[in-house]
């Protein structure tokens, strides 16, 4: 065949189309990010317009985006936003830390010990299915302060995603890594620190991300009662004083903070993941 003998012209690979594709993709994603938010705010504005246009609902017009954004400087200057974030952040942080401190070892035990896994399966599944907020009356009786009770509720809500995600991560670990490390003289502590933790960092962080979402959902209603600080309290307080623009502003703050925390978790997952597909 003549074709076989014909010289093949190999096109020289150029980096220009590659970089332009990356830029194009970045541009598209940025545009869509803002466009998505634009659609949300437009719908919000349109809803508020309908509320304002109807005489029966006009006095709820402060739920709209413009009064809400006007409330931000006021809430910031009197320290409402900062105080609420600090109080809620403390409860969320402490609750999550407790959940991680308990959930990760439980997850490792679940992943490593068949006896523990089989023994704990029924009680853990039962406890996991109890809505975290249903523990509130019991927590209020058991703990001295409401603050402690809320931290407990967050820990109860967050511990399961951390534990089960850690266990799932461990189940995927190549058993040969344990053999190799033992072969190279690793003590159990070395295996835990140098092999298990880095191997399942992705799964632990994914569990923490899920736990954060659950904890954030539990935090706000848990702060509706008993305490006089925090994001949940601020919403409840705004409702009672009929400051609807303050109420929506604080709801927006909850959304923004939650989004930022979730993004931080996503970044940490990317940073500590060694899986090729996720890089």
């Amino acid at each position, binding site marked *: 065949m003549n074709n076989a003998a014909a010289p093949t012209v190999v096109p020289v690979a150029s980096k220009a189309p590659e970089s332009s594709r990356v830029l194009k993709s970045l541009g598209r994603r940025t545009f869509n990010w803002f466009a998505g938010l634009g659609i949300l705010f437009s719908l919000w504005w349109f809803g508020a317009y309908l509320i304002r246009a109807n005489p029966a609902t006009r006095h709820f017009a402060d739920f709209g985006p413009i009064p809400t954004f006007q409330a931000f400087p006021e809430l910031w200057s009197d320290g409402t936003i900062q105080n609420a974030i600090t109080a809620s952040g403390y409860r969320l942080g402490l609750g999550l830390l407790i959940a991680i401190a308990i959930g990760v070892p439980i997850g490792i035990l679940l992943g490593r010990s068949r006896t523990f896994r089989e023994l704990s399966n029924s009680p853990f599944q039962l406890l996991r299915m109890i809505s975290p907020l249903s523990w509130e009356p019991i927590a209020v009786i058991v703990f001295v302060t409401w603050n402690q009770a809320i931290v407990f509720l967050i820990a109860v809500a967050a511990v399961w995603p951390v534990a089960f995600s850690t266990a799932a991560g461990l189940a995927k670990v*190549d058993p*040969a*890594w344990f*053999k*190799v*490390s*033992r*072969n*190279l*003289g*690793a*003590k159990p502590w*070395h295996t835990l620190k*140098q*092999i298990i933790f*880095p*191997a399942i*960092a992705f799964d632990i962080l994914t569990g923490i991300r899920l736990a954060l979402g659950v904890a954030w959902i539990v935090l706000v209603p848990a702060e509706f009662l008993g305490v006089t600080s925090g994001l949940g309290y601020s919403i409840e307080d705004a409702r009672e004083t009929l400051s609807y623009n303050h109420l929506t502003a604080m709801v927006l703050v909850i959304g923004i903070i939650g989004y930022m925390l979730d993004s931080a978790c996503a970044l940490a997952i990317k940073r500590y993941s*060694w899986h*090729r597909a996720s890089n």
Partner: protein
Amino acid sequence: MAVRGVHIKIENLNHRYSAKGPVTFDRVNVEAGPGEALVVIGRSGCGKSTLLHILAGLLNPTSGTVHLDGTRVKGPSPRWVMMFQAPHLFPWMKVSQNVGIGLRFARWPEKKIRERVAEALSLVELEEHANDNVQDLSGGQQQRVALARSLVMEPELLLLDEPFSALDAFTRASLQKDVRSIAKRLGFNLMMVTHDIDEAVLMADRALVMAGAPGKIVHDLKIDLKDPREREDPEVQATRSRLMQIFHEAANSPSGGAERVVGHESVLETNPAVNL
């Protein structure tokens, strides 16, 4: 690197995975001098890998003992290190970190770890890849990293469990040559399990043929060939044919060649090459 060989003495080794389970192998006796390269060949299931795991201290024998220079093997040690069929590198670590992990377990100072890792990487010709992600390396390069990770411990005995079976023919040939040459240069013992007769001839000073159920060492063939060994060399070809014949005889015998154990023992006492 200051490495030396070791005197291996395996006495009446017997193994079964559970009390009621079948005997994996029985009455295995092997003795080897410092720096000797031994290859164990045999069909799947005759207990070759189990034997290697016991030598590495990763499994306990049901009965019998393994002594290395008089020290009884009771668990893993940096003195006897095993290399597995797959590299099993830690993908979250760079090449140099993978190689130095054993020294880190042994709490070596970072400066010494760096020096020793550089030496080991130079032995396997991967100096330029020290800072690479192990996931970016080819299969052969990954197996070289695994080799460096074992060599960095300066083992007296390197145990190899079919370490090249997953590699392409060219990479396999190159690693076979390199591992034997490094072992001979540094003087440590090799004990390797393989299904590949060519590999056995190219790498070993002695080939132990295992057969039967339970497995037994039915032949011990001395391979006295000059280095470097080339596949096309007529002497290599002749040894290969002889080993293949022994292997087939052992495999086709109803008792796995067990009837020749008495002969085998006398062979061990004299010169196996002459008797076979």
